[in-house]
C-alpha cells in the first residue's frame, strides 16, 4: 500500500474522516460538515488530491459542480491500517 509523503493537519484529518464515514460528496458539503470556509476547502482539497488522499472530479449534478471522494489508500490510512504517523 502507498505511503503518503504528506503531513496531515487536524483539519485535513477531519476532512478525511468525514469522507470516510459519509462517502463521496461535493466540496461544499464537506465544507459545511467540517465548518471549513469554501475558499480554504478548495485549496485544501487540491493539495490532498495531489497527495493522493482524495479524488476530486467534475460532477454536473453537484450544486458546486464538483465531487470529492476519499481514496482507498487514504481510507486505510484513516482506519490506521497504513501505519498512521
Amino acid at each position, binding site marked *: 500500500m502507498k505511503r503518503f509523503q504528506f503531513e496531515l493537519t487536524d483539519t485535513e484529518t477531519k476532512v478525511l474522516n468525514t469522507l470516510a464515514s459519509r*462517502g*463521496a*460528496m*461535493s*466540496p*461544499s*458539503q464537506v*465544507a*459545511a*460538515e467540517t*465548518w471549513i*470556509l*469554501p*475558499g*480554504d*476547502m*478548495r*485549496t485544501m482539497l487540491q493539495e490532498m488530491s495531489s497527495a493522493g488522499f482524495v*479524488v*476530486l*472530479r*467534475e*460532477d*454536473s*449534478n*453537484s*450544486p*458546486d*459542480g*464538483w*465531487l470529492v*471522494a476519499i*481514496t*482507498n489508500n487514504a481510507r486505510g490510512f484513516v482506519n490506521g491500517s497504513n501505519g498512521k504517523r
Partner: protein
Amino acid sequence: MTENIAPTSASIGAKILLLLVILLSFVVVVLLVWPVGPAAPTWMGPFQGDLRHFTAVLAPFLVIGFVGGLIGVAELVSTFKTYPREALLTRWAWVLIFANVLAAIAALLILRATTSPMSFLMEFLIVAFGFQGIIRTRFVLAKQVGSDKDGEVAINLGWLYDQFSNLARRQIDLELMNNRRTAVTRLLHYYPTLAELYDIALYTITARETLTAEEEQQKLGELEKLIDPKAPEHFAKTSIALMILENGGQSYVNLLLDQAMNQPGTAVATAAAPPARQDTLIRRLVDGYDLEGLVTLTNQLTDDEAVQEYVQLAAQPNPATSQAEQKATIAHFLIQQIGADALSRIL
C-alpha cells in the same frame, strides 16, 4: 412514480413448469401407492399395474434426462460466472438445457437399440458420462509438428452440439446484455448523481461477505479508477452502475430501484444517498439567493452567533473559490444547522 419491477416471462415460465412437474409427480406417486381394496373400481387394479410398468420403463429416461439437464445447467453457470442466475432465466438457457435433456434421452434410446441388454448402472455410466464427454470432445488423430490447428487431422464428434451451444451462448449473452442495459439505464435514472452511484457501489462491495480482503481491495481499486477525473462523467456513471449490477446482482438492483421509486426514506436509500428533497432545497437556495441574501436569510433564521459568523465569512469574496461553491456551502450549512423541514417551510 409507481412503476413496479415485473418478474421476467422466463422466471414465470420456470415456476409454472416446476409446479406442473411437482403436481404430476404427486399424482403418479399417489396412484402407485394407493391400496386397491374391494371397494376400489374394477379398472383401478389394471390401471395401477400399467402405471407401475410405465414408470419402470420411463424412470431410466427421466434419470438420464435429469443428468443431461444438470450438465447443461453446470455448463451455463460456468460460462456466465458473473450472472449465473440471470443467465439461467433466459429463454435460450432453457432451450440449451432442454436440448441436453433430449440428447441424453436420445443417446439412451440409441444405446438400447444398438447394444445387447445391460444393467441400468452401465447404461447410466455410458450415457451420463461417456456420451456427454464425447459430444464435448475433439479427437486429434494426427498433428503437424510445430503447427496450430491448421495442420491437424481431427474428428469432432460434437461439432453439431458445438454449433448449437455457441448459438445458445451468443443469444443468452445478447439477452443478458439487453437486461444489463435496461438495469443500468434505470439505475442512472433513479440515482442520477455520481456521488450516489459511488456510495452505492462502495456499499455493495464492502457488504459482500463472500469477497476475500484481496478481492475487496481489488474491486475498490477498480471503483476508484472509475471516478478518475480524466474519465468522462457519463462513462464514469455508466461504469459504476454496471459495477453495482455485477457486484450486487439483478435482485439487488431491483431492490434499489423499488426503494427509489416507492420508499425514498428506507434504509438502503438513505444509507446510499441523501433524500432528493435536500438536493431540491439546495438548488432553490443556490439559484434563488445571492451571497448577501443568504447572509440575511441566516440572520433571520437563527440567533446562533457561531452560525451567523461562519455564513458571514463563507460569503466573503474569495479568488480561491467560486460563488456557486460559496452558495452551495452555505446552503448545505443551513440545512445542517437549521434543518431541512424548517427551511422548506420558510422557502
